[in-house]
Protein backbone atom coordinates (compact mmCIF):
# COMPACT_ATOMS: atom_id res chain seq x y z
CA UNK A 1 0.00 0.00 0.00
CA UNK A 2 1.29 3.36 -1.00
CA UNK A 3 1.85 5.96 1.74
CA UNK A 4 1.04 8.74 -0.70
CA UNK A 5 -2.44 9.50 -1.98
CA UNK A 6 -3.23 9.26 -5.66
CA UNK A 7 -3.36 13.05 -5.89
CA UNK A 8 0.07 13.37 -4.28
CA UNK A 9 1.48 10.73 -6.62
CA UNK A 10 -0.08 12.52 -9.58
CA UNK A 11 1.35 15.85 -8.45
CA UNK A 12 4.81 14.31 -8.08
CA UNK A 13 4.51 12.86 -11.60
CA UNK A 14 3.75 16.36 -12.90
CA UNK A 15 6.62 17.87 -10.89
CA UNK A 16 9.08 15.36 -12.39
CA UNK A 17 7.58 16.09 -15.80
CA UNK A 18 8.19 19.80 -15.35
CA UNK A 19 11.82 19.25 -14.31
CA UNK A 20 12.44 16.92 -17.27
CA UNK A 21 10.81 19.40 -19.61
CA UNK A 22 12.98 22.28 -18.33
CA UNK A 23 16.13 20.16 -18.60
CA UNK A 24 15.24 19.18 -22.17
CA UNK A 25 14.71 22.83 -23.05
CA UNK A 26 18.12 23.64 -21.56
CA UNK A 27 19.70 20.70 -23.39
CA UNK A 28 18.34 21.74 -26.78
CA UNK A 29 19.06 25.43 -26.31
CA UNK A 30 22.65 24.76 -25.24
CA UNK A 31 23.48 21.93 -27.61
CA UNK A 32 26.22 23.96 -29.26
CA UNK A 33 27.89 24.81 -25.94
CA UNK A 34 28.13 21.24 -24.66
CA UNK A 35 30.45 18.41 -25.43
CA UNK A 36 28.91 15.21 -26.80
CA UNK A 37 29.51 13.51 -23.46
CA UNK A 38 27.77 16.32 -21.57
CA UNK A 39 24.91 16.23 -24.06
CA UNK A 40 24.56 12.45 -23.64
CA UNK A 41 24.83 12.69 -19.87
CA UNK A 42 22.10 15.29 -19.68
CA UNK A 43 19.96 13.21 -22.04
CA UNK A 44 20.35 10.16 -19.78
CA UNK A 45 19.36 12.16 -16.71
CA UNK A 46 16.28 13.42 -18.51
CA UNK A 47 15.40 9.82 -19.44
CA UNK A 48 15.61 8.75 -15.80
CA UNK A 49 13.56 11.71 -14.55
CA UNK A 50 10.87 11.17 -17.16
CA UNK A 51 10.84 7.45 -16.32
CA UNK A 52 10.11 8.38 -12.69
CA UNK A 53 7.34 10.68 -13.83
CA UNK A 54 5.77 7.84 -15.85
CA UNK A 55 6.08 5.35 -13.00
CA UNK A 56 4.44 7.85 -10.62
CA UNK A 57 1.58 8.40 -13.10
CA UNK A 58 1.05 4.63 -13.29
CA UNK A 59 1.12 4.39 -9.48
CA UNK A 60 -1.35 7.29 -9.19
CA UNK A 61 -3.68 5.45 -11.56
CA UNK A 62 -3.89 2.20 -9.63
CA UNK A 63 -3.90 4.05 -6.31
CA UNK A 64 -7.02 5.89 -7.55
CA UNK A 65 -8.77 2.54 -8.12
CA UNK A 66 -7.88 1.50 -4.56
CA UNK A 67 -9.12 4.81 -3.16
CA UNK A 68 -12.58 4.40 -4.64
CA UNK A 69 -13.05 0.65 -4.22
CA UNK A 70 -16.28 1.23 -2.22
CA UNK A 71 -17.87 3.16 -5.06
CA UNK A 72 -16.72 0.54 -7.56
CA UNK A 73 -18.42 -2.13 -5.43
CA UNK A 74 -21.65 -0.11 -5.11
CA UNK A 75 -21.83 0.38 -8.85
CA UNK A 76 -21.22 -3.32 -9.43
CA UNK A 77 -24.09 -4.05 -7.00
CA UNK A 78 -26.34 -1.70 -8.99
CA UNK A 79 -25.49 -3.56 -12.20
CA UNK A 80 -26.38 -6.85 -10.44
CA UNK A 81 -29.68 -5.36 -9.26
CA UNK A 82 -30.56 -4.36 -12.81
CA UNK A 83 -29.88 -7.93 -13.95
CA UNK A 84 -32.14 -9.24 -11.17
CA UNK A 85 -34.91 -6.83 -12.25
CA UNK A 86 -34.58 -7.93 -15.85
CA UNK A 87 -34.86 -11.56 -14.75
CA UNK A 88 -38.05 -10.70 -12.84
CA UNK A 89 -39.52 -9.07 -15.94
CA UNK A 90 -38.70 -12.18 -17.95
CA UNK A 91 -40.34 -14.32 -15.28
CA UNK A 92 -43.73 -12.70 -15.93
CA UNK A 93 -43.77 -14.06 -19.48
CA UNK A 94 -42.81 -17.45 -18.07
CA UNK A 95 -45.78 -17.29 -15.71
CA UNK A 96 -48.10 -16.41 -18.59
CA UNK A 97 -46.71 -19.34 -20.59
CA UNK A 98 -47.02 -21.65 -17.59
CA UNK A 99 -50.66 -20.61 -17.12
CA UNK A 100 -51.35 -21.43 -20.77
CA UNK A 101 -49.68 -24.82 -20.37
CA UNK A 102 -51.58 -25.58 -17.17
CA UNK A 103 -54.84 -24.89 -19.00
CA UNK A 104 -53.72 -27.16 -21.84
CA UNK A 105 -53.03 -29.96 -19.37
CA UNK A 106 -56.46 -29.50 -17.75
CA UNK A 107 -58.28 -29.39 -21.07
CA UNK A 108 -56.54 -32.56 -22.26
CA UNK A 109 -57.33 -34.42 -19.03
CA UNK A 110 -61.00 -33.38 -19.11
CA UNK A 111 -61.38 -34.39 -22.74
CA UNK A 112 -59.67 -37.74 -22.09
CA UNK A 113 -56.93 -37.08 -24.65
CA UNK A 114 -54.17 -39.30 -23.26
CA UNK A 115 -51.54 -38.47 -25.91
CA UNK A 116 -52.26 -34.74 -25.57
CA UNK A 117 -52.14 -35.01 -21.75
CA UNK A 118 -48.73 -36.68 -21.80
CA UNK A 119 -47.38 -34.12 -24.26
CA UNK A 120 -48.75 -31.09 -22.43
CA UNK A 121 -47.49 -32.37 -19.04
CA UNK A 122 -44.05 -32.84 -20.59
CA UNK A 123 -44.03 -29.28 -21.95
CA UNK A 124 -45.37 -27.95 -18.67
CA UNK A 125 -42.69 -29.74 -16.65
CA UNK A 126 -40.00 -28.51 -19.01
CA UNK A 127 -41.18 -24.92 -18.65
CA UNK A 128 -41.21 -24.99 -14.87
CA UNK A 129 -37.88 -26.76 -14.83
CA UNK A 130 -38.97 -30.12 -13.42
CA UNK A 131 -37.77 -33.33 -14.99
CA UNK A 132 -40.78 -35.60 -15.28
CA UNK A 133 -40.68 -39.14 -16.63
CA UNK A 134 -44.02 -40.53 -17.75
Amino acid sequence: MSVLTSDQLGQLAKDYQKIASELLKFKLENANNMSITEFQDLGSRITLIVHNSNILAAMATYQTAEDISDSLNTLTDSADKIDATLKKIQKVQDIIDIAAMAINVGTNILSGNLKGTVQSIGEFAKKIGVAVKI
Partner: protein
Amino acid sequence: MFNKRRNYLAVNLILLVSFTSCVNLQHVNKFATTSVEALARQDDIGYSFTQHCLDFECKKDIYHIPDVTKDFGKAAPCNCDTFKKADDALDLFNSVLTAYLTGLANLSDSKAVNYNFDNLIKAVDVDEIAGQLKITKPEMTSLGNLATIISNDLMNLYRKRKLKEIIKKSNTDFGIVISAYRKCVNDFFKNVLLDNDLNITLPNLYSTYFITNAALLSPLEKARIYEEYLARRATFETYKALTARLVFALDEIKDGHNKLNEESDHLTRNDLKQLINEYSTDIRAALGEFRKLKKSNQN
Protein backbone atom coordinates in the same frame (compact mmCIF):
# COMPACT_ATOMS: atom_id res chain seq x y z
CA MET B 1 -76.51 -3.46 -13.27
CA PHE B 2 -74.08 -5.82 -15.02
CA ASN B 3 -73.73 -3.41 -17.96
CA LYS B 4 -73.08 -0.47 -15.61
CA ARG B 5 -70.33 -2.39 -13.91
CA ARG B 6 -68.86 -3.45 -17.23
CA ASN B 7 -68.83 0.17 -18.44
CA TYR B 8 -67.17 1.28 -15.22
CA LEU B 9 -64.50 -1.38 -15.67
CA ALA B 10 -63.99 -0.41 -19.31
CA VAL B 11 -63.53 3.26 -18.44
CA ASN B 12 -61.02 2.38 -15.74
CA LEU B 13 -59.11 0.13 -18.11
CA ILE B 14 -58.98 2.81 -20.79
CA LEU B 15 -57.74 5.34 -18.24
CA LEU B 16 -55.12 2.91 -17.01
CA VAL B 17 -53.96 2.13 -20.53
CA SER B 18 -53.80 5.79 -21.55
CA PHE B 19 -51.97 6.66 -18.33
CA THR B 20 -49.39 3.92 -18.56
CA SER B 21 -48.73 3.78 -22.29
CA CYS B 22 -46.73 7.03 -22.16
CA VAL B 23 -43.75 5.15 -20.63
CA ASN B 24 -41.15 5.61 -23.32
CA LEU B 25 -37.58 5.28 -22.16
CA GLN B 26 -35.99 5.25 -25.58
CA HIS B 27 -33.90 8.35 -24.76
CA VAL B 28 -32.42 6.59 -21.70
CA ASN B 29 -31.74 3.51 -23.81
CA LYS B 30 -30.05 5.56 -26.52
CA PHE B 31 -27.94 7.45 -23.97
CA ALA B 32 -26.81 4.29 -22.17
CA THR B 33 -26.14 2.39 -25.41
CA THR B 34 -24.08 5.24 -26.88
CA SER B 35 -22.19 5.57 -23.60
CA VAL B 36 -21.29 1.87 -23.65
CA GLU B 37 -20.07 2.30 -27.22
CA ALA B 38 -17.91 5.25 -26.19
CA LEU B 39 -16.39 3.32 -23.26
CA ALA B 40 -15.43 0.52 -25.63
CA ARG B 41 -13.14 2.97 -27.46
CA GLN B 42 -10.55 2.79 -24.66
CA ASP B 43 -9.12 -0.32 -26.29
CA ASP B 44 -9.04 1.37 -29.70
CA ILE B 45 -6.68 4.15 -28.65
CA GLY B 46 -3.88 1.73 -29.48
CA TYR B 47 -1.61 2.74 -26.64
CA SER B 48 -1.47 1.98 -22.96
CA PHE B 49 0.81 2.18 -19.93
CA THR B 50 2.03 -1.35 -20.69
CA GLN B 51 2.62 -0.53 -24.34
CA HIS B 52 4.72 2.44 -23.25
CA CYS B 53 6.79 0.14 -21.06
CA LEU B 54 7.23 -2.41 -23.84
CA ASP B 55 8.25 0.25 -26.35
CA PHE B 56 10.45 2.46 -24.19
CA GLU B 57 11.72 0.15 -21.47
CA CYS B 58 11.89 -3.24 -23.16
CA LYS B 59 12.59 -2.59 -26.86
CA LYS B 60 14.90 0.37 -26.44
CA ASP B 61 16.50 0.00 -29.87
CA ILE B 62 13.35 1.03 -31.74
CA TYR B 63 13.63 4.55 -30.35
CA HIS B 64 17.43 4.82 -30.52
CA ILE B 65 17.50 4.78 -26.75
CA PRO B 66 21.01 4.78 -25.27
CA ASP B 67 21.69 2.50 -22.35
CA VAL B 68 21.38 4.83 -19.39
CA THR B 69 22.21 2.08 -16.92
CA LYS B 70 25.81 2.02 -18.11
CA ASP B 71 26.22 5.71 -17.17
CA PHE B 72 24.64 5.45 -13.76
CA GLY B 73 25.63 1.92 -12.84
CA LYS B 74 22.03 1.19 -11.93
CA ALA B 75 20.28 -1.89 -13.17
CA ALA B 76 17.03 -1.01 -14.91
CA PRO B 77 15.66 -4.27 -16.23
CA CYS B 78 12.52 -4.34 -18.29
CA ASN B 79 9.83 -4.63 -15.67
CA CYS B 80 6.34 -3.56 -16.65
CA ASP B 81 4.48 -4.64 -13.48
CA THR B 82 3.63 -1.11 -12.32
CA PHE B 83 2.43 -0.15 -15.79
CA LYS B 84 0.34 -3.33 -16.05
CA LYS B 85 -1.29 -2.50 -12.72
CA ALA B 86 -2.20 0.94 -14.04
CA ASP B 87 -3.82 -0.61 -17.12
CA ASP B 88 -5.69 -3.07 -14.89
CA ALA B 89 -7.07 -0.13 -12.93
CA LEU B 90 -8.25 1.60 -16.11
CA ASP B 91 -9.83 -1.66 -17.28
CA LEU B 92 -11.57 -2.02 -13.92
CA PHE B 93 -13.10 1.48 -14.12
CA ASN B 94 -14.13 0.84 -17.68
CA SER B 95 -15.68 -2.57 -17.07
CA VAL B 96 -17.65 -1.47 -13.98
CA LEU B 97 -19.06 1.55 -15.83
CA THR B 98 -19.81 -0.58 -18.88
CA ALA B 99 -21.66 -3.21 -16.83
CA TYR B 100 -23.78 -0.57 -15.12
CA LEU B 101 -24.61 1.33 -18.32
CA THR B 102 -25.34 -1.91 -20.17
CA GLY B 103 -27.82 -2.71 -17.41
CA LEU B 104 -29.45 0.72 -17.82
CA ALA B 105 -29.61 0.17 -21.58
CA ASN B 106 -31.27 -3.22 -21.16
CA LEU B 107 -33.72 -2.02 -18.55
CA SER B 108 -34.75 0.99 -20.63
CA ASP B 109 -35.03 -1.03 -23.83
CA SER B 110 -38.63 -1.15 -25.04
CA LYS B 111 -37.99 -4.76 -26.09
CA ALA B 112 -37.30 -5.70 -22.45
CA VAL B 113 -41.05 -5.96 -21.92
CA ASN B 114 -43.09 -7.59 -24.65
CA TYR B 115 -45.56 -9.92 -23.05
CA ASN B 116 -47.66 -12.16 -25.17
CA PHE B 117 -50.95 -13.73 -24.07
CA ASP B 118 -51.66 -15.49 -27.38
CA ASN B 119 -50.90 -18.99 -26.09
CA LEU B 120 -52.96 -18.41 -22.96
CA ILE B 121 -55.95 -17.16 -24.93
CA LYS B 122 -55.65 -20.06 -27.37
CA ALA B 123 -55.55 -22.49 -24.44
CA VAL B 124 -58.84 -21.25 -23.03
CA ASP B 125 -61.71 -23.16 -24.57
CA VAL B 126 -64.52 -20.60 -24.80
CA ASP B 127 -67.13 -23.31 -25.46
CA GLU B 128 -66.14 -25.11 -22.26
CA ILE B 129 -66.60 -22.07 -20.03
CA ALA B 130 -69.67 -20.74 -21.86
CA GLY B 131 -71.85 -22.15 -19.10
CA GLN B 132 -70.18 -20.14 -16.36
CA LEU B 133 -69.26 -16.95 -18.26
CA LYS B 134 -71.16 -15.27 -21.05
CA ILE B 135 -68.18 -14.59 -23.30
CA THR B 136 -67.70 -14.99 -27.03
CA LYS B 137 -64.50 -15.88 -28.89
CA PRO B 138 -63.95 -12.32 -30.27
CA GLU B 139 -64.50 -10.95 -26.76
CA MET B 140 -61.94 -13.43 -25.45
CA THR B 141 -59.44 -12.28 -28.09
CA SER B 142 -60.05 -8.63 -27.17
CA LEU B 143 -59.58 -9.52 -23.53
CA GLY B 144 -56.25 -11.11 -24.45
CA ASN B 145 -55.18 -7.99 -26.33
CA LEU B 146 -56.19 -5.82 -23.42
CA ALA B 147 -54.32 -8.08 -20.99
CA THR B 148 -51.24 -7.76 -23.20
CA ILE B 149 -51.44 -3.97 -23.24
CA ILE B 150 -52.13 -3.65 -19.52
CA SER B 151 -49.47 -6.09 -18.39
CA ASN B 152 -46.90 -4.58 -20.76
CA ASP B 153 -47.73 -1.09 -19.57
CA LEU B 154 -47.78 -2.03 -15.92
CA MET B 155 -44.45 -3.72 -16.29
CA ASN B 156 -43.14 -0.69 -18.16
CA LEU B 157 -44.16 1.41 -15.17
CA TYR B 158 -42.33 -1.04 -12.92
CA ARG B 159 -39.30 -0.73 -15.21
CA LYS B 160 -39.45 3.07 -15.03
CA ARG B 161 -39.74 2.98 -11.23
CA LYS B 162 -36.80 0.59 -10.95
CA LEU B 163 -34.76 2.70 -13.34
CA LYS B 164 -35.46 5.79 -11.26
CA GLU B 165 -34.53 3.95 -8.06
CA ILE B 166 -31.28 2.62 -9.51
CA ILE B 167 -30.22 5.93 -11.08
CA LYS B 168 -30.93 7.81 -7.85
CA LYS B 169 -29.11 5.28 -5.71
CA SER B 170 -26.09 4.98 -8.00
CA ASN B 171 -25.58 8.58 -9.06
CA THR B 172 -23.08 9.55 -6.35
CA ASP B 173 -20.95 6.45 -6.86
CA PHE B 174 -21.34 6.68 -10.62
CA GLY B 175 -20.02 10.25 -10.38
CA ILE B 176 -17.10 9.17 -8.20
CA VAL B 177 -16.11 6.28 -10.50
CA ILE B 178 -16.43 8.19 -13.77
CA SER B 179 -14.56 11.21 -12.32
CA ALA B 180 -11.77 8.92 -11.10
CA TYR B 181 -11.62 7.21 -14.49
CA ARG B 182 -11.54 10.59 -16.22
CA LYS B 183 -8.75 11.79 -13.91
CA CYS B 184 -6.65 8.72 -14.65
CA VAL B 185 -7.23 8.85 -18.41
CA ASN B 186 -6.84 12.60 -18.76
CA ASP B 187 -4.40 13.67 -16.04
CA PHE B 188 -2.17 10.63 -15.69
CA PHE B 189 -2.37 8.81 -19.02
CA LYS B 190 -2.80 11.71 -21.47
CA ASN B 191 -1.22 14.67 -19.70
CA VAL B 192 1.67 12.80 -18.09
CA LEU B 193 2.49 9.56 -19.94
CA LEU B 194 1.55 10.60 -23.48
CA ASP B 195 2.88 14.13 -23.02
CA ASN B 196 6.14 12.77 -21.65
CA ASP B 197 6.54 10.39 -24.58
CA LEU B 198 5.62 13.02 -27.15
CA ASN B 199 7.20 16.18 -25.82
CA ILE B 200 10.13 14.96 -23.72
CA THR B 201 11.21 11.41 -24.45
CA LEU B 202 11.06 11.50 -28.25
CA PRO B 203 12.90 14.83 -28.68
CA ASN B 204 15.36 13.86 -25.96
CA LEU B 205 16.24 10.49 -27.50
CA TYR B 206 16.37 11.66 -31.09
CA SER B 207 18.40 14.77 -30.26
CA THR B 208 20.94 12.66 -28.37
CA TYR B 209 21.09 10.22 -31.27
CA PHE B 210 21.58 13.01 -33.80
CA ILE B 211 24.31 14.80 -31.90
CA THR B 212 26.12 11.59 -30.94
CA ASN B 213 26.08 10.24 -34.49
CA ALA B 214 26.28 13.51 -36.41
CA ALA B 215 29.62 12.62 -37.93
CA LEU B 216 28.60 9.08 -38.85
CA LEU B 217 25.26 9.76 -40.53
CA SER B 218 24.95 10.64 -44.18
CA PRO B 219 22.56 13.47 -45.10
CA LEU B 220 20.18 10.84 -46.47
CA GLU B 221 20.25 8.87 -43.22
CA LYS B 222 19.73 12.05 -41.24
CA ALA B 223 16.71 12.89 -43.37
CA ARG B 224 15.31 9.36 -42.92
CA ILE B 225 15.71 9.47 -39.15
CA TYR B 226 14.19 12.93 -38.99
CA GLU B 227 11.18 11.67 -40.96
CA GLU B 228 10.94 8.70 -38.62
CA TYR B 229 10.95 11.14 -35.69
CA LEU B 230 8.16 13.22 -37.22
CA ALA B 231 6.11 10.10 -37.99
CA ARG B 232 6.44 8.92 -34.39
CA ARG B 233 5.44 12.33 -33.14
CA ALA B 234 2.38 12.23 -35.38
CA THR B 235 1.42 8.82 -33.97
CA PHE B 236 1.61 10.15 -30.42
CA GLU B 237 -0.35 13.26 -31.39
CA THR B 238 -3.07 10.90 -32.64
CA TYR B 239 -3.04 8.90 -29.37
CA LYS B 240 -3.51 12.17 -27.51
CA ALA B 241 -6.32 13.32 -29.77
CA LEU B 242 -8.07 9.93 -29.48
CA THR B 243 -7.75 10.06 -25.69
CA ALA B 244 -9.15 13.60 -25.67
CA ARG B 245 -12.24 12.31 -27.51
CA LEU B 246 -12.70 9.59 -24.90
CA VAL B 247 -12.34 12.18 -22.11
CA PHE B 248 -14.94 14.40 -23.79
CA ALA B 249 -17.32 11.43 -24.01
CA LEU B 250 -16.74 10.68 -20.30
CA ASP B 251 -17.69 14.25 -19.41
CA GLU B 252 -20.90 13.97 -21.43
CA ILE B 253 -21.74 10.59 -19.87
CA LYS B 254 -21.23 12.01 -16.39
CA ASP B 255 -23.35 15.10 -17.08
CA GLY B 256 -26.05 13.05 -18.81
CA HIS B 257 -26.33 10.64 -15.88
CA ASN B 258 -26.41 13.57 -13.49
CA LYS B 259 -29.28 15.09 -15.44
CA LEU B 260 -31.14 11.77 -15.38
CA ASN B 261 -30.70 11.70 -11.62
CA GLU B 262 -31.85 15.30 -11.10
CA GLU B 263 -34.94 14.70 -13.20
CA SER B 264 -35.54 11.09 -12.23
CA ASP B 265 -39.08 11.95 -11.13
CA HIS B 266 -39.86 13.07 -14.67
CA LEU B 267 -37.93 10.54 -16.74
CA THR B 268 -40.44 10.67 -19.57
CA ARG B 269 -40.88 14.43 -19.75
CA ASN B 270 -40.30 15.83 -23.24
CA ASP B 271 -37.72 18.48 -22.31
CA LEU B 272 -35.65 15.86 -20.44
CA LYS B 273 -35.91 13.52 -23.42
CA GLN B 274 -34.59 16.28 -25.64
CA LEU B 275 -31.74 17.12 -23.28
CA ILE B 276 -30.68 13.49 -22.86
CA ASN B 277 -30.84 13.02 -26.62
CA GLU B 278 -28.48 15.99 -26.96
CA TYR B 279 -25.97 14.26 -24.67
CA SER B 280 -26.28 11.12 -26.82
CA THR B 281 -25.73 13.17 -29.97
CA ASP B 282 -22.60 14.78 -28.48
CA ILE B 283 -21.22 11.39 -27.47
CA ARG B 284 -22.00 10.04 -30.94
CA ALA B 285 -20.23 13.03 -32.50
CA ALA B 286 -17.15 12.32 -30.35
CA LEU B 287 -17.31 8.69 -31.50
CA GLY B 288 -17.46 9.85 -35.12
CA GLU B 289 -14.39 12.04 -34.62
CA PHE B 290 -12.65 9.17 -32.86
CA ARG B 291 -13.29 6.85 -35.82
CA LYS B 292 -12.15 9.50 -38.30
CA LEU B 293 -8.91 10.10 -36.39
CA LYS B 294 -8.28 6.39 -36.09
CA LYS B 295 -8.86 5.91 -39.79
CA SER B 296 -6.57 8.78 -40.75
CA ASN B 297 -3.86 7.33 -38.50
CA GLN B 298 -4.14 3.94 -40.22
CA ASN B 299 -3.87 5.45 -43.73
